[in-house]
């Protein structure tokens, strides 16, 4: 097994911490990326899969410079990197972009002097001034509208919703102005705005503060939605979202802000439309995003012990779906399980189910199973709240059912 690992290539990653599989990236140019999969199983069998992705010439800003391998190992790159929490990674990304481009500005409630209710913008107001890190009054509709108006003239504002649920008040601005102005003006105005904030179910925050807005926003034409889940992809997606000329809604999760991770020292920007392969596998494709990724990985441990080999993909891009990565996975495993935090009705999982069925129906051996939260307002009581969400045990049961 060691011999196989060493024989891979000059630009191989440092020795993987896992002896199950290795992923190496052979030179990432801006136009083309090749990935070699070497799957080494515990019974000694190993085989390769070549995965070639042809990318059309794109803007520099949306290309992946580095890929995430496996959650425990270091990122591809020779420097050891530095450790930080997810909210610090967001701040780092934000700060780097603000240094790079004077048009980038932040606006939101308590982002300036207070430092942000989740400390994402801490210290920025002292560094960049009150106009660039703007404390707004509690008027979501108008300060989101203000951000959009500023974006029309060429500024690149980042609007922070203290909690995603509050952005429902700004729905008109986000849907009609943010999403549609580029189209209705015949391409005259572009809206390079980033709307970000924490959403999702926290620890007993109550119904109104535990909303998952990705399902409400997903039909709005003209916007892109991404959800970050690790410190690494949080920083990369934040930077990509700021550099993107389209309006991007970046969904963070209240409970993920204190995740500690080691990220590279060098600058990197991730691709907004790409999904992340968390754990390659053979038996079933598990599609997930945001916090549910961790529930899935927990379930994956149990599943692996039971002999299953799940392929876990963090879809990251909620609009549009990375049907390319997902499709390749479906063609390999023929079984799909979607695990999400959205409601059952009209959630991201529902759309994803429809999209996969439409495009890859012939490759499916079993109907797609979608595990989502219950269609109820999130209760306050701890146990009830736990039951509204998908738990690892349910994921394990679903996979067992699916792989029968």
């Amino acid at each position: 097994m060691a011999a196989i690992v060493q024989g891979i290539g000059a630009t191989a990653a440092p020795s993987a911490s896992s002896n199950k599989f290795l992923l190496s990236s052979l030179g990432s140019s801006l136009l083309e990326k090749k990935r070699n999969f070497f799957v080494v199983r515990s019974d000694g069998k190993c085989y390769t899969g070549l995965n070639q992705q042809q990318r059309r010439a794109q803007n520099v800003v949306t290309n992946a410079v580095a890929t995430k391998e496996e959650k425990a190992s270091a990122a591809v790159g020779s420097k050891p990197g530095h450790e930080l929490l997810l909210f610090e990674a967001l701040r780092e990304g934000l700060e780097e972009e603000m240094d790079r481009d004077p048009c980038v500005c932040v606006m939101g409630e308590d982002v300036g002097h207070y430092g942000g209710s989740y400390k994402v913008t801490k210290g920025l107001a002292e560094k960049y001034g009150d106009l660039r890190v703007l404390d707004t009054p509690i008027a979501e509709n108008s300060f989101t509208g203000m951000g959009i108006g500023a974006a029309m003239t060429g500024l690149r504002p980042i609007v922070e919703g203290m909690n995603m649920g509050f952005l429902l008040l700004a729905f008109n601005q986000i849907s009609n102005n943010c999403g549609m102005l580029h189209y209705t003006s015949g391409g005259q105005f572009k809206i390079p705005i980033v709307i970000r904030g924490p959403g999702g179910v926290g620890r007993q925050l109550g119904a109104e503060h535990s909303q998952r807005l990705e399902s409400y926003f997903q039909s709005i034409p003209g916007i892109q939605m991404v959800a970050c889940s690790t410190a690494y992809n949080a920083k990369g997606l934040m930077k990509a979202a700021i550099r993107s000329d389209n309006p991007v809604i970046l969904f963070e999760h209240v409970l993920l802000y204190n995740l500690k991770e080691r990220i590279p020292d060098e600058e990197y920007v991730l691709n907004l439309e790409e999904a992340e392969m968390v754990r390659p596998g053979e038996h079933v494709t598990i599609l997930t995003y945001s916090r549910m990724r961790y529930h899935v990985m927990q379930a994956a441990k149990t599943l692996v012990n039971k002999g299953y080999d799940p392929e876990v993909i963090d879809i990251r891009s909620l609009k549009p779906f990375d049907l390319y990565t997902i499709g390749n996975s479906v063609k390999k495993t023929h079984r799909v399980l979607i695990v999400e935090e959205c409601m059952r009705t009209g959630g991201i999982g529902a759309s994803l189910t429809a999209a996969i069925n439409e495009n890859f129906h012939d490759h499916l051996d079993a109907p797609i199973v979608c595990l989502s939260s219950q269609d109820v307002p999130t209760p306050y009581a701890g146990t009830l709240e736990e039951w509204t969400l998908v738990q690892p045990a349910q994921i394990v049961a679903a996979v067992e059912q699916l792989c029968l």
Partner: protein
Amino acid sequence: MALSTHRTTTALLRHLTPAVSYLRHISTDSTSTITVETSVPFTGHKIEPPSRSVDTTAQELMSFFRDMALMRRMEIAADSLYKAKLIRGFCHLYDGQEAVAVGMEAAITRKDCIITAYRDHCIFLGRGGTLLESFSELMGRKDGCSKGKGGSMHFYKKEGGFYGGHGIVGAQIPLGCGLAFAQKYKNDENVTFTLYGDGAANQGQLFEALNMAALWDLPAILVCENNHYGMGTAEWRAAKSPAYYKRGDYVPGLKVDGMDALAVKQACRFAKEHALKNGPIILEMDTYRYHGHSMSDPGSTYRTRDEISGVRQERDPIERVRKLLLAYDIANEKELKDIEKEARKQVDEAIAKAKESPLPEPSELFTNVYVKGYGVESFGADRKEIRAALP
């Protein structure tokens, strides 16, 4: 040639009308200042109103007349096109309110921004839009200002500083504050005029935006085009306090006769100076629309025809400028009629040309949804099958 000798010459040479017109033309292009008093004084709220005497020139008055005649003609033509089913959907006409558009343009530059709601055809024209772009857009053709994809309520002109064209009542007000914010951020000494109606004046967004504009001293001028009817509801039935210029409370306001282009010009110039130094100000333009709210509204169920014709007789903006031109002998009846005929001709030509303009290509359905740099969805799942050509 002094004006008095000019007049005696006219009297003597009355039969030599062509020669007289030639002589007349010399004075029409003169840029010597004429001072006119507005018919109604300005009323201020927490601010000293500007003087009633407005400086103007013959050239400017002629341009007012020409522009307003063109705008009026355009709106009337749009009315017939709508009835001929060439314009569909919603069509909100601006005739009667032209003075606001031309007066505002006279006071500002193209670097200042204007943003308005859906009654935007004439303001688009004032900002440098052409008749062809306007009619093509109304008829949904490719040559329209928004490539036919916006429609009546979505006219935009980036080079002219015209930011639209918005369908949802009041949603443009925070956008306008955003434009002002960007102007303050870039420190470029320009202002933003955010126009809204008396109906939108009751929206919460207005007060939220006012608060923020006043808090940060943004160079935003909020202009309430008060035509006294919010669609079918009269202002006294919708607002507890119809004194919209006072509604800003801590923000100073000015009430202006919106049917008098010179008063509008004076107020806008005053407002621009104020906004650059002291932050936001509200202007209430007391104006009137002859048509209904939109083409689907006859406009006579909630107001009497007498009221409409009364305003048309007494306060019509074009008539007011016509009287001024005649009184100051800048032009005679025939010349003004010629200008109106010319306007009619231009409009007819533009309509003919717009009718020839093709409808947008089917692939245009997918263009401009996103800015370049995005390509997954339109390529389908395999990134091979091209579903739409992206710009």
